[in-house]
């Protein structure tokens, strides 16, 4: 029959410098402590992390000589693990984590509105081409188009700034767009994104 050394003796030996005693303690209680953590967090990776943090605390406390032996090594370790589990849930409450699964991917619902690098390059090119085309328009039409598109002014504001009626401003805008399309068609320019 194999004689099992008591935890209290192993702890005493470990404090005295016997590293093998720690190995025995960890291996003896590994499954029980891990299963306890896993039953609460239900994630094997997090269980592993909390198990590791638990024993780092145990090692530090024992090496500092702050542990008082009362024959309750396992309950003491379980209490440390329990407190770390609470810390884990508190931390997660502040920063909720969402992990997708094979059935559902969060990125199919949430999308990044920004253009990717390639589309951004194309957009920049179109913007620069368009500004060259606008230069070809007659002065009065260009003025209205610039105010409407680039300065985001209303037709009322445009009419006040240019000293023409709203209808004239609208008409100039309409002709500016018609002429732009004509220039695009005439020169076979492709403006797409």
């Amino acid at each position, binding site marked *: 029959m194999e004689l099992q050394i008591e935890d209290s003796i192993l702890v005493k030996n470990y404090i005295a410098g016997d*590293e093998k005693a720690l190995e025995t303690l*960890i*291996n003896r209680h*590994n499954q029980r402590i891990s299963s306890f953590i*896993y039953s609460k967090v239900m994630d094997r990776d997090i269980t*592993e992390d909390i198990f*590791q943090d638990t024993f*780092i605390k145990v090692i530090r406390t024992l*090496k500092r000589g702050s542990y008082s032996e009362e024959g309750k090594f396992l309950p003491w370790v379980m209490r440390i693990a329990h407190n770390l589990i609470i810390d884990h849930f508190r931390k997660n409450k502040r920063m909720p984590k969402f992990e997708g699964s094979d059935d559902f991917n969060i990125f199919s619902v949430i999308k990044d509105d920004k253009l990717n690098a390639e589309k951004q390059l194309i957009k920049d090119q179109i913007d620069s081409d368009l500004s060259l085309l606008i230069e070809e328009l007659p002065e009065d039409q260009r003025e209205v188009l610039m105010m409407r598109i680039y300065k985001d002014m209303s037709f009322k504001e445009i009419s006040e700034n240019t000293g023409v009626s709203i209808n004239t401003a609208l008409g100039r805008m309409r002709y500016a767009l018609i002429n732009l399309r004509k220039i695009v068609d005439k020169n076979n320019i492709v403006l797409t994104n």
Partner: protein
Amino acid sequence: MEEIYSEEQKICKIAKATPETVGFLLAFSKSMAVMKCRNLQFETVLN
């Protein structure tokens, strides 16, 4: 077979820290020392 039983393993509540984690803890323990100077304690971890 591994594929078929993978879900079952997740449900199983028996868990055990991997030998790597245990190995890390033993290495940490060996590398860590507490120095006492007057009334102060200093922790040192040697790589």
